């Protein structure tokens, strides 16, 4: 069967912006300028969460003024090794992307973990935050996490 079907190259290019809002802005500025990790505390659900939020997603309590500083150290609760390259990645592969529960926080955040030997990274690995040296207005104000020995500072 003959067909006239063919393909046409197209492109979409549109600008956009995203406002972090007052609560997230406070957190990012503290990371960037004071190297402090500020989390939100909800008494009703008994949870401390980082990244922080204006409202608790479970109880709808207003958390915008309920700040708690949490540790720059934490534990890997899950991880993957990125082995392929694509333009939007924050660094060249291979690298470890991990779920990290900071000491004092009940939620996990996703971040990059640096290790001398990425094949040895495991759940339960202790890590600490390394802050960016130049100002960054997003979660990469923490440049990455580094592995630290397990027995030195377990919570």
């Amino acid at each position, binding site marked *: 069967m003959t067909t*006239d*079907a063919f*393909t*046409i190259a197209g492109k*979409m*290019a549109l*600008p956009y*912006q995203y406002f972090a809002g*007052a609560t997230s802005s406070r957190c990012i500025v503290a990371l960037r300028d004071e190297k402090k990790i500020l989390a939100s505390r909800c008494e009703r659900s008994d949870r401390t969460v980082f990244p922080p939020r204006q409202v608790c997603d479970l109880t709808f309590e207003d958390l915008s003024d309920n700040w708690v500083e949490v540790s720059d150290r934490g534990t890997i609760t899950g991880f993957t090794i990125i082995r392929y390259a694509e333009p939007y990645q924050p660094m060249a592969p291979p690298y470890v992307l991990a779920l990290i529960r900071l000491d004092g926080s009940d939620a996990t955040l996703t971040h990059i973990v640096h290790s001398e030997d990425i094949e040895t990274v495991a759940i339960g690995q202790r890590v600490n935050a390394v802050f960016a040296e130049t100002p960054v207005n997003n979660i990469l104000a923490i440049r990455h996490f580094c592995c630290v020995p397990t027995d030195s500072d377990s919570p």
Partner: protein
Amino acid sequence: MTDTPREQELIVSKQILSIEQTFSTGPIMGHFLRELRDNQRIMALRCRANGRFLLPPREVDAWSLSDDLEWIEVGPEGTLCEFDVVYYASPDPLTGATRNVPYVIGWVILDGVEGLSPLWHLIHTTDIPALRHGLRVRAVFAETRTGAMEDIVHFEVLNTGETGP
């Protein structure tokens, strides 16, 4: 903890979403675009069930739900049935570039089309105030054609003094 500063720094992330795309013409639009490119012909589909002309051509007529369709060459001349004079410089969504204004978009009933099935395209004129319904226009084809709607550069207004129905 500490009080929120009165003049708080509010963080904004500014980005451009830019995506390369590939669109499949399918056999029907593909035939239409190939005819524009290779033969400078404008082909419409006519539904045999209800006589409706399809521009853009589709695989099935949306009103009769029939696929009993025949290709009919129409134009390249036609009659302007509606037009918009655009003063607002909207961006070209394919490139983000801002368009020059004013420009005219028109709906043209091509010769050979029966009923209200217009072709939508740019209208080139040096006399915007003289634009009116019923003006005769003709498709101007591009020198280099790629199999896209831009193979018709625009429709030019014919100075015939004649107005259509």
